[in-house]
């Protein structure tokens, strides 16, 4: 009961904050007569958003970015899982690769976007690689941490009943890694989106990032805000899909 109440309260508060912020914003723009190419009123952004949603060109760009994000995400995640399992199971790989991974992690990967543009061109490939790379690192780190998260007791219990190394991996280490894996998956979707947009900024023919740049050149700030809202919606939708999958798969873990 208490939980339900607090959820309802939260929903009400979120809506309230939305109206206060957009109302205040609208009011400010109206009173100060700020021109739309500096700060558009929320109502203008809303109109712009609706006209975009009815525009075939927008959907064309939307699906290009979605394709880059999803392909990059899947690619980055898959490589991270394979590498993570290998590193956690093969000591030689752990010893030799971990220092490099730690070092590479400190590089802001988005800085590689111009290089990827050189290597992979203005098409989709450079965006997919960028999205994959940034989704890759948090996933890799989480896979490795997750596979090492099993308690000594659980492992010893399995050994006592005669489990092989592979059985210990599959029956204890993998299930125990799942909360970490989903943390990596959740970060990964957001990061892949960032990667694709940044790569589009650096040079692209199509995509939502490209649209932001075009609106910027046209001083269409409302259009840029509208795209931002679309990006936020994409990020939140994918993130909550991961969250829903997590609650189904890792049903035994708590809420956090």
């Amino acid at each position, binding site marked *: 009961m208490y939980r339900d109440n607090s959820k309802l309260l939260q929903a009400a508060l979120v809506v309230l904050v939305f109206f206060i912020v957009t109302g205040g914003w609208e009011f400010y723009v109206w009173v100060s007569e700020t021109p739309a190419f500096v700060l558009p009123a929320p109502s203008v952004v809303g109109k712009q958003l609706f006209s975009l949603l009815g525009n075939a060109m927008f959907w064309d760009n939307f699906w290009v970015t979605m394709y880059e994000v999803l392909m990059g995400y899947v690619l980055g995640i898959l490589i991270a899982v394979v590498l993570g399992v290998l590193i956690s199971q093969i000591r030689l790989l752990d010893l030799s690769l971990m220092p490099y991974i730690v070092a590479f992690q400190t590089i802001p990967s988005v800085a590689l976007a111009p290089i990827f543009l050189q290597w992979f061109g203005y098409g989709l490939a450079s965006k997919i690689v960028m999205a994959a790379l940034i989704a890759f690192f948090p996933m890799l780190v989480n896979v490795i941490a997750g596979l090492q998260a099993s308690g000594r007791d*659980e492992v010893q219990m*399995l050994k*006592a*009943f005669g489990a092989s190394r592979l059985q210990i991996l599959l*029956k204890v280490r993998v299930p125990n890694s799942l909360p970490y894996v989903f943390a990596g998956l959740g970060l990964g979707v957001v990061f892949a989106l960032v990667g694709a947009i940044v790569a589009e900024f650096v040079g692209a023919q199509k995509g939502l990032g490209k649209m932001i740049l075009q609106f910027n050149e046209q001083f269409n700030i409302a259009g840029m805000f509208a795209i931002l809202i679309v990006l936020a919606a994409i990020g939140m939708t994918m993130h909550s899909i991961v969250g829903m999958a997590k609650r189904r798969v890792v049903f035994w873990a708590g809420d956090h």
Partner: protein
Amino acid sequence: MDSISQPLIRINNLCKTYPTRSGDTVALDKVNLDIGDGEFIALVGPSGCGKTTLLKILAGLEGGFSGEARLGNVAITKPSLEVGVVFQEPTLLPWRTILENIMLPVELVRMDTKTYTKRALELMEMIGLKGFENKYPRELSGGMRQRAGICRALVRDPKVLLMDEPFGALDAMTREFLNAELQRIWMRAGKTVVFVTHSIPEAVFLADRVVVMSPRPGRISEIVPIGLPRERKLGDLAHAGDELARIRGHFADSSMID
């Protein structure tokens, strides 16, 4: 026990040293013990006297010792199908139902699922877990989880049951109840049990012989046979005053009094 003439477990001059940064720890020093088939042995002794170490060696989980531990005709070097282990923590896997947890040892060595599911269900009924087959560990009380741990140790029908302070984390009432239960299971199933505990009354209540150990280095200081007839009741401990006193005498100057 007269079966001692042909022991099931033979521990011969067993020594185990753990190297640590601040020098070596002698966990076991020349331990000798023969355990008869069907015998119930309780191991008592203060913290750090090597009870867990001894049990782990018997479970085939610990190597690097000198001397020998034999189960039947084979030296113990790895976990055996003939041995079931109950740990201090039940260590049930939270993503498995109780029945799936109990069946884990069967699954690991690919024994026949059908036959052993039947056995698992019988064990669960015997130990009072009927109806909890499809529950998850978090839905059970501590005592019930530990019972599930016992079922898991018994499911492959091993000859030997090794138990390391299995009831140590439970409240006194649950503990007494499970002790009585364990005695019944042991009497019915005819297992050989090695049972580690910090509780002297628990040891006396359960065991045919209580093995008293002392620390630094870990040694057996006395083996006390308990003559109480079966099936024992809690009140019977009043008739074991001598044994209780004798065992307690070993710990007069240590903190282990229960």
